[in-house]
Protein backbone atom coordinates (compact mmCIF):
# COMPACT_ATOMS: atom_id res chain seq x y z
CA UNK A 1 0.00 0.00 0.00
CA UNK A 2 2.68 2.50 -0.92
CA UNK A 3 0.57 4.51 -3.31
CA UNK A 4 1.37 8.15 -2.69
CA UNK A 5 0.44 9.39 -6.12
CA UNK A 6 -2.54 11.31 -4.81
CA UNK A 7 -4.88 9.50 -7.17
CA UNK A 8 -6.93 6.87 -5.46
CA UNK A 9 -8.14 3.72 -7.09
CA UNK A 10 -11.61 4.74 -6.12
CA UNK A 11 -11.55 8.15 -7.72
CA UNK A 12 -10.41 6.46 -10.92
CA UNK A 13 -13.24 3.99 -10.79
CA UNK A 14 -15.90 6.42 -9.70
CA UNK A 15 -14.91 8.58 -12.66
CA UNK A 16 -15.49 5.68 -15.01
CA UNK A 17 -19.22 5.69 -14.45
CA UNK A 18 -19.66 3.35 -11.51
CA UNK A 19 -22.61 5.43 -10.41
CA UNK A 20 -23.76 2.91 -7.85
CA UNK A 21 -21.00 3.79 -5.44
CA UNK A 22 -22.70 4.87 -2.27
CA UNK A 23 -19.84 6.76 -0.70
CA UNK A 24 -16.13 6.30 -0.45
CA UNK A 25 -14.80 8.98 -2.70
CA UNK A 26 -11.93 9.83 -0.41
CA UNK A 27 -8.51 8.46 -1.20
CA UNK A 28 -7.61 7.22 2.20
CA UNK A 29 -4.06 6.37 1.28
CA UNK A 30 -3.40 10.05 1.81
CA UNK A 31 -2.54 12.88 -0.44
CA UNK A 32 0.82 13.67 1.10
CA UNK A 33 3.92 11.56 0.90
CA UNK A 34 3.98 10.66 4.55
CA UNK A 35 4.07 7.48 6.56
CA UNK A 36 1.62 9.01 8.99
CA UNK A 37 -1.95 8.57 7.84
CA UNK A 38 -4.90 10.51 9.10
CA UNK A 39 -7.63 8.58 10.84
CA UNK A 40 -10.17 11.26 10.03
CA UNK A 41 -10.53 10.22 6.39
CA UNK A 42 -12.84 7.27 6.66
CA UNK A 43 -13.87 5.33 3.58
CA UNK A 44 -17.23 3.70 4.03
CA UNK A 45 -20.09 2.40 1.95
CA UNK A 46 -23.71 2.89 3.02
CA UNK A 47 -25.52 -0.17 4.32
CA UNK A 48 -29.22 0.59 3.93
CA UNK A 49 -30.93 0.80 0.57
CA UNK A 50 -33.18 -0.91 -1.96
CA UNK A 51 -30.38 -3.34 -2.74
CA UNK A 52 -27.71 -4.75 -0.47
CA UNK A 53 -24.29 -3.17 -0.80
CA UNK A 54 -21.36 -5.27 -1.97
CA UNK A 55 -22.58 -5.62 -5.55
CA UNK A 56 -22.75 -2.24 -7.29
CA UNK A 57 -19.92 -0.55 -5.45
CA UNK A 58 -16.27 -0.96 -6.29
CA UNK A 59 -15.16 -4.29 -4.80
CA UNK A 60 -12.95 -4.13 -1.74
CA UNK A 61 -9.40 -5.36 -2.22
CA UNK A 62 -9.90 -8.50 -0.16
CA UNK A 63 -12.87 -10.71 0.47
CA UNK A 64 -14.16 -13.56 2.58
CA UNK A 65 -17.04 -15.64 1.31
CA UNK A 66 -18.29 -17.38 4.46
CA UNK A 67 -20.77 -20.22 4.00
CA UNK A 68 -23.03 -21.20 6.90
CA UNK A 69 -25.51 -23.98 7.65
CA UNK A 70 -28.27 -23.54 10.21
CA UNK A 71 -27.77 -25.88 13.15
CA UNK A 72 -31.49 -26.22 13.82
CA UNK A 73 -33.25 -25.18 10.60
CA UNK A 74 -36.30 -23.37 11.91
CA UNK A 75 -37.91 -20.22 10.69
CA UNK A 76 -37.32 -18.54 14.06
CA UNK A 77 -33.61 -19.33 13.95
CA UNK A 78 -33.33 -18.01 10.42
CA UNK A 79 -35.03 -14.82 11.54
CA UNK A 80 -32.56 -14.48 14.41
CA UNK A 81 -29.64 -14.92 12.02
CA UNK A 82 -30.98 -12.20 9.76
CA UNK A 83 -31.60 -9.78 12.63
CA UNK A 84 -28.13 -10.30 14.06
CA UNK A 85 -26.51 -10.01 10.65
CA UNK A 86 -28.32 -6.76 9.91
CA UNK A 87 -27.51 -5.25 13.28
CA UNK A 88 -23.84 -6.13 13.00
CA UNK A 89 -23.46 -5.15 9.35
CA UNK A 90 -25.23 -1.81 9.78
CA UNK A 91 -22.69 -0.93 12.47
CA UNK A 92 -19.46 -2.53 11.28
CA UNK A 93 -19.72 -1.18 7.72
CA UNK A 94 -20.02 2.32 9.17
CA UNK A 95 -16.98 2.01 11.41
CA UNK A 96 -18.96 1.41 14.58
CA UNK A 97 -18.42 -1.53 16.93
CA UNK A 98 -21.04 -4.26 16.98
CA UNK A 99 -23.15 -4.68 20.09
CA UNK A 100 -21.19 -6.73 22.65
CA UNK A 101 -18.09 -6.22 20.52
CA UNK A 102 -15.10 -7.79 22.26
CA UNK A 103 -12.63 -5.60 20.35
CA UNK A 104 -14.40 -2.35 19.47
CA UNK A 105 -11.11 -0.69 18.49
CA UNK A 106 -10.91 -2.97 15.46
CA UNK A 107 -14.14 -1.56 14.07
CA UNK A 108 -13.15 2.09 13.73
CA UNK A 109 -11.69 1.89 10.24
CA UNK A 110 -14.47 0.58 7.98
CA UNK A 111 -12.14 0.61 4.94
CA UNK A 112 -15.03 0.20 2.50
CA UNK A 113 -16.27 -2.91 4.28
CA UNK A 114 -19.41 -4.41 2.79
CA UNK A 115 -21.34 -7.38 4.18
CA UNK A 116 -23.85 -9.05 1.88
CA UNK A 117 -26.10 -11.98 2.76
CA UNK A 118 -27.55 -14.57 0.40
CA UNK A 119 -29.62 -17.70 0.97
CA UNK A 120 -28.97 -21.04 -0.71
CA UNK A 121 -31.56 -23.30 -2.37
CA UNK A 122 -31.08 -25.85 0.47
CA UNK A 123 -32.58 -23.39 2.93
CA UNK A 124 -35.97 -23.72 1.25
CA UNK A 125 -36.01 -27.49 1.65
CA UNK A 126 -34.58 -27.51 5.17
CA UNK A 127 -36.55 -24.73 6.83
CA UNK A 128 -40.28 -25.50 7.08
CA UNK A 129 -42.93 -22.99 6.02
CA UNK A 130 -40.72 -20.54 4.14
CA UNK A 131 -42.30 -18.89 1.13
CA UNK A 132 -41.41 -20.64 -2.11
CA UNK A 133 -38.29 -19.64 -3.98
CA UNK A 134 -38.28 -18.28 -7.52
CA UNK A 135 -38.50 -21.02 -10.16
CA UNK A 136 -35.27 -19.82 -11.72
CA UNK A 137 -33.30 -20.22 -8.48
CA UNK A 138 -31.87 -23.72 -8.07
CA UNK A 139 -28.54 -25.38 -7.42
CA UNK A 140 -26.28 -24.99 -10.44
CA UNK A 141 -25.85 -28.47 -11.98
CA UNK A 142 -22.29 -29.79 -12.23
CA UNK A 143 -20.86 -29.23 -15.70
CA UNK A 144 -18.98 -32.00 -17.54
CA UNK A 145 -15.44 -30.88 -16.60
CA UNK A 146 -16.21 -29.86 -13.04
CA UNK A 147 -14.44 -31.63 -10.17
CA UNK A 148 -16.56 -30.23 -7.40
CA UNK A 149 -15.41 -30.68 -3.83
CA UNK A 150 -18.14 -30.47 -1.19
CA UNK A 151 -15.76 -28.42 0.96
CA UNK A 152 -16.15 -25.52 -1.47
CA UNK A 153 -19.76 -26.06 -2.52
CA UNK A 154 -23.18 -25.12 -1.23
CA UNK A 155 -24.65 -24.09 2.13
CA UNK A 156 -27.83 -22.71 3.66
CA UNK A 157 -26.60 -19.14 3.44
CA UNK A 158 -23.52 -17.09 2.70
CA UNK A 159 -22.09 -13.78 3.77
CA UNK A 160 -19.81 -12.00 1.34
CA UNK A 161 -17.39 -9.68 3.13
CA UNK A 162 -15.37 -7.24 1.00
CA UNK A 163 -12.93 -4.75 2.46
CA UNK A 164 -9.73 -2.80 1.90
CA UNK A 165 -8.19 -3.63 5.29
CA UNK A 166 -7.37 -7.13 6.51
CA UNK A 167 -7.72 -6.28 10.20
CA UNK A 168 -11.18 -4.79 9.70
CA UNK A 169 -12.18 -7.78 7.60
CA UNK A 170 -10.96 -10.29 10.21
CA UNK A 171 -12.81 -8.48 12.93
CA UNK A 172 -16.08 -8.39 10.99
CA UNK A 173 -15.89 -12.09 10.09
CA UNK A 174 -15.01 -13.02 13.67
CA UNK A 175 -17.80 -10.90 15.13
CA UNK A 176 -20.41 -12.46 12.84
CA UNK A 177 -19.13 -16.00 13.41
CA UNK A 178 -19.37 -15.46 17.18
CA UNK A 179 -22.80 -13.86 17.02
CA UNK A 180 -24.19 -16.67 14.89
CA UNK A 181 -22.31 -19.45 16.72
CA UNK A 182 -25.37 -20.80 18.54
CA UNK A 183 -27.50 -20.71 15.38
CA UNK A 184 -25.28 -21.69 12.47
CA UNK A 185 -21.96 -23.32 11.78
CA UNK A 186 -19.40 -22.26 9.23
CA UNK A 187 -19.14 -24.81 6.42
CA UNK A 188 -16.35 -23.20 4.43
CA UNK A 189 -14.60 -19.90 3.87
CA UNK A 190 -13.10 -18.73 0.61
CA UNK A 191 -10.66 -15.86 0.90
CA UNK A 192 -9.89 -13.72 -2.11
CA UNK A 193 -7.98 -10.68 -3.23
CA UNK A 194 -8.10 -8.25 -6.12
CA UNK A 195 -5.64 -5.85 -7.61
CA UNK A 196 -5.50 -2.37 -6.15
CA UNK A 197 -5.76 -0.96 -9.68
CA UNK A 198 -7.96 -1.72 -12.66
CA UNK A 199 -6.22 -3.39 -15.56
CA UNK A 200 -6.69 -0.22 -17.61
CA UNK A 201 -7.39 3.33 -16.58
CA UNK A 202 -11.08 4.17 -16.77
CA UNK A 203 -12.37 0.58 -16.69
CA UNK A 204 -13.56 -1.84 -14.02
CA UNK A 205 -11.59 -4.76 -15.45
CA UNK A 206 -8.90 -6.42 -13.35
CA UNK A 207 -6.18 -8.98 -14.00
CA UNK A 208 -6.48 -12.54 -12.78
CA UNK A 209 -3.58 -14.75 -11.74
CA UNK A 210 -3.11 -16.02 -15.30
CA UNK A 211 -2.58 -12.40 -16.32
CA UNK A 212 -5.83 -12.33 -18.26
CA UNK A 213 -8.25 -9.43 -18.03
CA UNK A 214 -11.43 -10.14 -16.08
CA UNK A 215 -14.59 -8.12 -16.46
CA UNK A 216 -14.38 -6.86 -20.05
CA UNK A 217 -17.84 -6.03 -21.36
CA UNK A 218 -19.28 -6.03 -17.83
CA UNK A 219 -22.52 -4.06 -17.55
CA UNK A 220 -21.77 -0.90 -15.60
CA UNK A 221 -23.49 -0.50 -12.22
CA UNK A 222 -26.18 2.13 -12.11
CA UNK A 223 -27.28 2.04 -15.73
CA UNK A 224 -30.63 0.58 -16.86
CA UNK A 225 -29.03 -2.41 -18.60
CA UNK A 226 -27.23 -3.34 -15.38
CA UNK A 227 -30.46 -2.97 -13.42
CA UNK A 228 -32.41 -5.34 -15.65
CA UNK A 229 -29.57 -7.85 -15.90
CA UNK A 230 -28.81 -7.95 -12.18
CA UNK A 231 -31.82 -7.08 -10.01
CA UNK A 232 -34.65 -9.57 -9.68
CA UNK A 233 -37.91 -8.18 -10.99
CA UNK A 234 -40.05 -11.32 -11.44
CA UNK A 235 -41.25 -14.17 -9.27
CA UNK A 236 -42.17 -13.92 -5.59
CA UNK A 237 -42.31 -10.43 -4.16
CA UNK A 238 -39.92 -11.17 -1.29
CA UNK A 239 -37.03 -11.62 -3.72
CA UNK A 240 -37.64 -8.43 -5.73
CA UNK A 241 -34.57 -6.16 -5.83
CA UNK A 242 -32.38 -9.06 -4.80
CA UNK A 243 -30.04 -10.85 -7.17
CA UNK A 244 -28.54 -14.28 -7.68
CA UNK A 245 -24.90 -14.94 -6.96
CA UNK A 246 -23.08 -17.64 -8.87
CA UNK A 247 -19.95 -18.53 -6.92
CA UNK A 248 -17.48 -20.93 -8.50
CA UNK A 249 -13.99 -21.80 -7.32
CA UNK A 250 -11.88 -22.23 -10.42
CA UNK A 251 -8.46 -23.76 -10.05
CA UNK A 252 -5.83 -22.60 -12.52
CA UNK A 253 -3.36 -25.21 -13.76
CA UNK A 254 -0.42 -22.83 -13.96
CA UNK A 255 2.26 -25.41 -14.74
CA UNK A 256 0.46 -26.38 -17.92
CA UNK A 257 -0.56 -22.84 -18.81
CA UNK A 258 3.00 -21.58 -18.71
CA UNK A 259 4.06 -24.15 -21.31
CA UNK A 260 2.00 -22.25 -23.88
CA UNK A 261 3.65 -19.41 -25.68
CA UNK A 262 2.05 -16.03 -25.50
CA UNK A 263 0.28 -16.06 -28.83
CA UNK A 264 -1.26 -19.43 -28.00
CA UNK A 265 -2.42 -18.08 -24.63
CA UNK A 266 -4.05 -15.18 -26.47
CA UNK A 267 -5.71 -17.54 -28.98
CA UNK A 268 -7.22 -19.56 -26.13
CA UNK A 269 -8.94 -16.47 -24.77
CA UNK A 270 -9.43 -14.47 -27.96
CA UNK A 271 -7.89 -11.35 -26.46
CA UNK A 272 -4.43 -9.84 -26.31
CA UNK A 273 -2.85 -10.13 -22.89
CA UNK A 274 -1.17 -6.72 -22.86
CA UNK A 275 -4.01 -4.35 -23.67
CA UNK A 276 -6.97 -6.70 -23.35
CA UNK A 277 -8.19 -5.96 -26.88
CA UNK A 278 -10.12 -8.71 -28.63
CA UNK A 279 -7.98 -10.15 -31.42
CA UNK A 280 -8.39 -7.79 -34.37
CA UNK A 281 -9.27 -4.84 -32.11
CA UNK A 282 -7.12 -2.05 -30.71
CA UNK A 283 -8.55 -1.51 -27.22
CA UNK A 284 -10.33 -3.59 -24.62
CA UNK A 285 -13.79 -2.08 -24.72
CA UNK A 286 -14.36 -2.05 -28.47
CA UNK A 287 -17.26 -4.19 -29.69
CA UNK A 288 -15.86 -7.58 -30.66
CA UNK A 289 -16.03 -8.55 -34.33
CA UNK A 290 -16.40 -12.31 -34.24
CA UNK A 291 -16.37 -12.47 -38.05
CA UNK A 292 -12.90 -10.91 -38.42
CA UNK A 293 -10.42 -13.06 -40.34
CA UNK A 294 -6.69 -13.00 -40.98
CA UNK A 295 -5.04 -12.77 -44.40
CA UNK A 296 -5.58 -16.47 -44.93
CA UNK A 297 -9.29 -16.11 -44.25
CA UNK A 298 -9.08 -17.90 -40.87
CA UNK A 299 -11.11 -16.42 -37.99
CA UNK A 300 -9.03 -14.21 -35.71
CA UNK A 301 -11.11 -15.40 -32.80
CA UNK A 302 -11.24 -19.18 -33.04
CA UNK A 303 -14.40 -21.23 -32.79
CA UNK A 304 -13.45 -22.40 -29.29
CA UNK A 305 -11.99 -19.16 -27.98
CA UNK A 306 -13.18 -18.31 -24.50
CA UNK A 307 -14.71 -14.95 -25.40
CA UNK A 308 -16.63 -16.32 -28.37
CA UNK A 309 -18.36 -18.94 -26.25
CA UNK A 310 -18.85 -16.62 -23.29
CA UNK A 311 -20.45 -13.98 -25.49
CA UNK A 312 -24.20 -13.86 -24.99
CA UNK A 313 -26.36 -15.08 -27.85
CA UNK A 314 -28.93 -12.46 -26.84
CA UNK A 315 -28.94 -9.22 -24.86
CA UNK A 316 -30.33 -10.95 -21.77
CA UNK A 317 -27.50 -13.46 -21.81
CA UNK A 318 -25.13 -11.36 -19.76
CA UNK A 319 -23.98 -11.49 -16.18
CA UNK A 320 -22.18 -9.04 -13.91
CA UNK A 321 -18.80 -10.45 -12.89
CA UNK A 322 -17.14 -9.35 -9.65
CA UNK A 323 -14.36 -11.88 -9.23
CA UNK A 324 -11.57 -12.34 -6.71
CA UNK A 325 -8.34 -14.34 -6.90
CA UNK A 326 -7.28 -16.98 -4.44
CA UNK A 327 -3.76 -18.18 -3.75
CA UNK A 328 -2.93 -20.86 -1.20
CA UNK A 329 0.77 -20.76 -1.98
CA UNK A 330 2.64 -23.94 -2.91
CA UNK A 331 0.94 -27.24 -2.11
CA UNK A 332 2.82 -30.49 -2.79
CA UNK A 333 5.27 -28.58 -4.95
CA UNK A 334 2.58 -27.02 -7.11
CA UNK A 335 1.04 -23.60 -7.03
CA UNK A 336 -2.49 -23.78 -5.65
CA UNK A 337 -4.32 -20.78 -7.00
CA UNK A 338 -7.22 -19.68 -9.10
CA UNK A 339 -10.26 -17.53 -9.41
CA UNK A 340 -13.22 -17.04 -7.12
CA UNK A 341 -15.68 -16.48 -9.92
CA UNK A 342 -18.45 -14.34 -8.41
CA UNK A 343 -21.15 -13.22 -10.80
CA UNK A 344 -24.56 -11.67 -10.29
CA UNK A 345 -27.63 -12.16 -12.43
CA UNK A 346 -31.36 -11.58 -12.13
CA UNK A 347 -32.05 -14.95 -13.76
CA UNK A 348 -29.38 -17.64 -14.16
CA UNK A 349 -31.61 -19.78 -16.36
CA UNK A 350 -31.62 -17.21 -19.12
CA UNK A 351 -28.07 -15.91 -18.60
CA UNK A 352 -25.48 -17.96 -16.78
CA UNK A 353 -26.63 -21.47 -17.61
CA UNK A 354 -26.51 -21.09 -21.41
CA UNK A 355 -23.15 -19.29 -21.21
CA UNK A 356 -21.56 -21.90 -18.96
CA UNK A 357 -23.17 -24.67 -20.98
CA UNK A 358 -21.26 -23.53 -24.06
CA UNK A 359 -18.03 -22.99 -22.14
CA UNK A 360 -18.19 -26.43 -20.52
CA UNK A 361 -18.77 -28.00 -23.92
CA UNK A 362 -15.86 -26.62 -25.87
CA UNK A 363 -13.97 -23.69 -24.30
CA UNK A 364 -10.27 -23.97 -25.18
CA UNK A 365 -9.47 -22.68 -21.71
CA UNK A 366 -10.89 -25.83 -20.08
CA UNK A 367 -7.52 -27.58 -20.40
CA UNK A 368 -6.02 -25.07 -17.97
CA UNK A 369 -8.83 -24.49 -15.49
CA UNK A 370 -11.02 -26.76 -13.37
CA UNK A 371 -14.04 -25.76 -11.31
CA UNK A 372 -13.56 -27.29 -7.85
CA UNK A 373 -16.42 -25.52 -6.08
CA UNK A 374 -19.85 -24.34 -7.12
CA UNK A 375 -22.64 -22.63 -5.21
CA UNK A 376 -25.50 -20.31 -5.81
CA UNK A 377 -27.28 -17.93 -3.47
CA UNK A 378 -30.17 -15.55 -3.68
CA UNK A 379 -28.86 -12.24 -2.37
CA UNK A 380 -31.80 -10.82 -0.45
CA UNK A 381 -33.09 -7.31 -1.16
CA UNK A 382 -31.75 -4.42 0.89
CA UNK A 383 -33.58 -2.95 3.87
CA UNK A 384 -34.34 0.31 5.61
CA UNK A 385 -33.20 1.36 9.05
CA UNK A 386 -36.40 0.07 10.64
CA UNK A 387 -36.26 -3.43 9.19
CA UNK A 388 -33.72 -6.15 8.61
CA UNK A 389 -32.31 -8.01 5.64
CA UNK A 390 -34.70 -10.83 4.77
CA UNK A 391 -37.68 -9.42 6.61
CA UNK A 392 -39.61 -9.91 3.38
CA UNK A 393 -39.39 -13.68 3.95
CA UNK A 394 -41.50 -13.35 7.09
CA UNK A 395 -44.22 -10.92 6.06
Amino acid at each position, binding site marked *: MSDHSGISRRSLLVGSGAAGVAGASIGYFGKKSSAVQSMTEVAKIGFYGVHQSGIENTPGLISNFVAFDLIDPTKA*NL*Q*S*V*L*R*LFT*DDAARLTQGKPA*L*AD*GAPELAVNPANLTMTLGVGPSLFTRVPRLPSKPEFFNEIPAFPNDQLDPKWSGSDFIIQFCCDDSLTLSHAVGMIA*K*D*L*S*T*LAQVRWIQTGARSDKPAFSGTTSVRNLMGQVEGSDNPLPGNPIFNSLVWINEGPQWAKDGTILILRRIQMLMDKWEILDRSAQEMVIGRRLDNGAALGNKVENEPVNFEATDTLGLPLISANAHIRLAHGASLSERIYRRPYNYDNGIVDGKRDLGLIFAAFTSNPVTSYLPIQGRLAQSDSLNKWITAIGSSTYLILPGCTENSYIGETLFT
Partner: protein
Amino acid sequence: MRSKLFATLALTCLLCGFNLVPVAADMTAMPGAKCSMPGMTVTVAKLTYLCQSKAGVLTWSTGLPVSKVAITLTDGWVKLATTGMSGAFGIVKNNTKNAVTIVGVASARAAAVQTHEMVMKNGAMVMQMKMDGFTIPAGKTLELKPGGNHLMLMGITKPIKAGDYLYLTLTTSTGGQATVRVIGKVFAGGNETYDTSNTTAMKP
Protein backbone atom coordinates in the same frame (compact mmCIF):
# COMPACT_ATOMS: atom_id res chain seq x y z
CA MET B 1 -51.45 -11.66 40.98
CA ARG B 2 -49.99 -14.65 42.78
CA SER B 3 -47.52 -16.98 41.21
CA LYS B 4 -46.21 -20.29 42.47
CA LEU B 5 -43.13 -19.73 40.36
CA PHE B 6 -42.02 -16.73 42.34
CA ALA B 7 -42.45 -18.48 45.64
CA THR B 8 -40.22 -21.35 44.62
CA LEU B 9 -37.53 -19.11 43.14
CA ALA B 10 -37.08 -16.82 46.12
CA LEU B 11 -33.36 -16.30 46.72
CA THR B 12 -31.50 -13.77 48.79
CA CYS B 13 -28.56 -11.86 47.44
CA LEU B 14 -25.52 -12.34 49.61
CA LEU B 15 -24.07 -9.03 48.52
CA CYS B 16 -27.00 -6.71 48.76
CA GLY B 17 -29.19 -8.59 51.18
CA PHE B 18 -32.34 -8.31 49.12
CA ASN B 19 -34.35 -10.93 47.40
CA LEU B 20 -33.24 -11.74 43.89
CA VAL B 21 -36.75 -12.64 42.89
CA PRO B 22 -39.93 -11.49 44.52
CA VAL B 23 -41.51 -13.62 47.17
CA ALA B 24 -45.17 -14.45 46.89
CA ALA B 25 -46.13 -11.66 49.28
CA ASP B 26 -44.77 -9.11 46.82
CA MET B 27 -47.35 -9.96 44.28
CA THR B 28 -50.18 -8.38 46.22
CA ALA B 29 -49.31 -4.73 46.30
CA MET B 30 -50.94 -2.66 48.99
CA PRO B 31 -49.86 0.92 49.53
CA GLY B 32 -47.78 1.07 52.72
CA ALA B 33 -47.53 -2.72 53.01
CA LYS B 34 -44.09 -4.27 53.23
CA CYS B 35 -42.41 -5.58 50.14
CA SER B 36 -39.16 -7.47 49.71
CA MET B 37 -37.55 -6.27 46.51
CA PRO B 38 -36.78 -2.64 45.69
CA GLY B 39 -37.43 -1.79 42.06
CA MET B 40 -40.23 -4.31 41.79
CA THR B 41 -43.27 -2.87 40.06
CA VAL B 42 -46.82 -4.11 39.93
CA THR B 43 -49.43 -2.50 37.72
CA VAL B 44 -53.10 -2.95 38.54
CA ALA B 45 -55.96 -1.03 36.92
CA LYS B 46 -53.64 1.50 35.25
CA LEU B 47 -51.91 2.25 38.53
CA THR B 48 -48.34 1.23 39.15
CA TYR B 49 -47.06 0.36 42.61
CA LEU B 50 -43.35 0.51 43.32
CA CYS B 51 -41.45 -1.33 46.00
CA GLN B 52 -39.49 1.55 47.51
CA SER B 53 -36.90 1.86 50.23
CA LYS B 54 -37.51 4.57 52.82
CA ALA B 55 -35.17 4.76 55.79
CA GLY B 56 -34.19 1.16 55.20
CA VAL B 57 -37.76 -0.12 55.14
CA LEU B 58 -39.26 -1.49 51.95
CA THR B 59 -42.86 -0.59 51.34
CA TRP B 60 -45.23 -0.35 48.40
CA SER B 61 -45.81 3.15 47.09
CA THR B 62 -49.18 4.67 46.48
CA GLY B 63 -50.60 3.88 43.06
CA LEU B 64 -49.06 6.07 40.38
CA PRO B 65 -51.06 6.62 37.20
CA VAL B 66 -49.24 5.03 34.28
CA SER B 67 -48.16 7.43 31.55
CA LYS B 68 -45.71 7.26 28.69
CA VAL B 69 -42.37 8.84 29.35
CA ALA B 70 -39.80 9.89 26.75
CA ILE B 71 -36.99 7.55 27.68
CA THR B 72 -35.28 5.68 24.86
CA LEU B 73 -32.76 2.89 24.86
CA THR B 74 -30.45 2.43 21.89
CA ASP B 75 -27.80 -0.20 21.25
CA GLY B 76 -29.77 -2.48 23.58
CA TRP B 77 -28.64 -6.06 24.03
CA VAL B 78 -28.97 -8.88 26.50
CA LYS B 79 -26.58 -11.70 27.22
CA LEU B 80 -27.77 -15.20 26.31
CA ALA B 81 -29.03 -17.33 29.18
CA THR B 82 -31.02 -20.53 29.44
CA THR B 83 -32.06 -20.18 33.07
CA GLY B 84 -31.25 -18.04 36.07
CA MET B 85 -29.85 -14.59 35.48
CA SER B 86 -28.66 -12.38 32.67
CA GLY B 87 -27.56 -8.80 32.13
CA ALA B 88 -29.06 -6.22 29.77
CA PHE B 89 -27.16 -3.23 28.42
CA GLY B 90 -27.51 -0.22 26.19
CA ILE B 91 -27.63 3.54 26.22
CA VAL B 92 -30.63 5.04 27.99
CA LYS B 93 -31.51 8.58 27.05
CA ASN B 94 -33.74 10.94 28.98
CA ASN B 95 -35.48 13.00 26.30
CA THR B 96 -37.46 15.06 28.79
CA LYS B 97 -36.70 18.46 30.28
CA ASN B 98 -36.53 17.09 33.80
CA ALA B 99 -34.33 14.62 35.57
CA VAL B 100 -35.81 11.14 35.52
CA THR B 101 -35.22 8.29 37.93
CA ILE B 102 -35.74 4.74 36.73
CA VAL B 103 -36.86 2.87 39.78
CA GLY B 104 -38.36 -0.26 38.27
CA VAL B 105 -37.84 -2.50 35.28
CA ALA B 106 -39.99 -5.40 34.17
CA SER B 107 -39.87 -8.02 31.44
CA ALA B 108 -42.16 -10.87 30.48
CA ARG B 109 -39.02 -12.97 30.07
CA ALA B 110 -37.82 -12.64 33.66
CA ALA B 111 -39.42 -12.95 37.08
CA ALA B 112 -37.81 -9.64 37.97
CA VAL B 113 -35.32 -7.11 36.69
CA GLN B 114 -33.09 -5.08 38.98
CA THR B 115 -30.95 -2.00 38.50
CA HIS B 116 -27.36 -2.75 39.48
CA GLU B 117 -24.21 -0.73 39.80
CA MET B 118 -20.57 -1.64 40.11
CA VAL B 119 -18.73 0.01 42.97
CA MET B 120 -15.24 -0.19 44.42
CA LYS B 121 -15.21 -1.86 47.82
CA ASN B 122 -12.05 -2.90 49.65
CA GLY B 123 -10.05 -2.48 46.46
CA ALA B 124 -12.26 -4.69 44.31
CA MET B 125 -15.14 -3.99 41.98
CA VAL B 126 -18.32 -5.47 43.32
CA MET B 127 -21.82 -5.46 42.04
CA GLN B 128 -24.62 -4.16 44.18
CA MET B 129 -28.21 -3.26 43.79
CA LYS B 130 -28.84 0.39 43.01
CA MET B 131 -31.30 1.04 45.79
CA ASP B 132 -32.69 4.32 44.53
CA GLY B 133 -32.60 3.47 40.83
CA PHE B 134 -30.79 5.26 38.02
CA THR B 135 -31.22 9.01 37.85
CA ILE B 136 -30.61 10.56 34.44
CA PRO B 137 -30.42 14.37 34.17
CA ALA B 138 -32.61 16.14 31.58
CA GLY B 139 -31.43 15.42 28.03
CA LYS B 140 -28.58 13.20 29.18
CA THR B 141 -27.73 9.55 28.66
CA LEU B 142 -26.78 6.68 30.90
CA GLU B 143 -24.62 3.90 29.56
CA LEU B 144 -25.42 0.41 30.77
CA LYS B 145 -22.49 -1.91 30.10
CA PRO B 146 -20.81 -5.06 31.36
CA GLY B 147 -18.70 -4.13 34.36
CA GLY B 148 -20.70 -0.94 34.90
CA ASN B 149 -24.28 0.04 35.55
CA HIS B 150 -26.58 -2.60 34.14
CA LEU B 151 -29.96 -4.25 34.33
CA MET B 152 -30.05 -7.67 35.94
CA LEU B 153 -32.69 -10.12 34.78
CA MET B 154 -33.61 -12.62 37.49
CA GLY B 155 -35.46 -15.87 37.05
CA ILE B 156 -35.35 -16.15 33.27
CA THR B 157 -38.72 -17.59 32.25
CA LYS B 158 -37.75 -18.76 28.75
CA PRO B 159 -34.22 -19.21 27.35
CA ILE B 160 -32.79 -16.04 25.82
CA LYS B 161 -31.37 -17.08 22.46
CA ALA B 162 -29.16 -15.23 20.01
CA GLY B 163 -31.18 -12.79 17.96
CA ASP B 164 -34.22 -12.90 20.29
CA TYR B 165 -35.94 -9.62 20.91
CA LEU B 166 -36.78 -8.89 24.56
CA TYR B 167 -38.92 -5.99 25.66
CA LEU B 168 -38.23 -4.22 28.93
CA THR B 169 -40.60 -1.79 30.58
CA LEU B 170 -38.82 0.95 32.47
CA THR B 171 -40.80 2.69 35.20
CA THR B 172 -39.85 6.07 36.60
CA SER B 173 -40.36 7.38 40.12
CA THR B 174 -43.37 9.34 38.89
CA GLY B 175 -45.07 6.35 37.29
CA GLY B 176 -43.96 7.05 33.74
CA GLN B 177 -43.28 3.98 31.64
CA ALA B 178 -41.30 3.30 28.49
CA THR B 179 -40.93 -0.01 26.70
CA VAL B 180 -37.59 -0.65 25.05
CA ARG B 181 -36.16 -3.50 22.99
CA VAL B 182 -32.93 -5.42 23.43
CA ILE B 183 -31.48 -8.22 21.28
CA GLY B 184 -29.94 -11.48 22.53
CA LYS B 185 -26.18 -11.63 21.94
CA VAL B 186 -23.43 -14.16 22.56
CA PHE B 187 -21.11 -12.63 25.14
CA ALA B 188 -18.48 -14.44 27.18
CA GLY B 189 -17.88 -11.68 29.73
CA GLY B 190 -20.21 -10.09 32.24
CA ASN B 191 -20.43 -13.17 34.43
CA GLU B 192 -22.19 -11.35 37.17
CA THR B 193 -23.27 -14.20 39.36
CA TYR B 194 -23.84 -14.16 43.06
CA ASP B 195 -21.53 -16.81 44.34
CA THR B 196 -21.65 -18.05 47.93
CA SER B 197 -17.96 -19.00 47.86
CA ASN B 198 -16.94 -15.56 46.66
CA THR B 199 -18.80 -13.01 48.67
CA THR B 200 -16.97 -9.82 47.79
CA ALA B 201 -15.15 -9.59 44.50
CA MET B 202 -16.69 -10.09 41.13
CA LYS B 203 -14.48 -11.62 38.51
CA PRO B 204 -13.65 -9.02 35.86
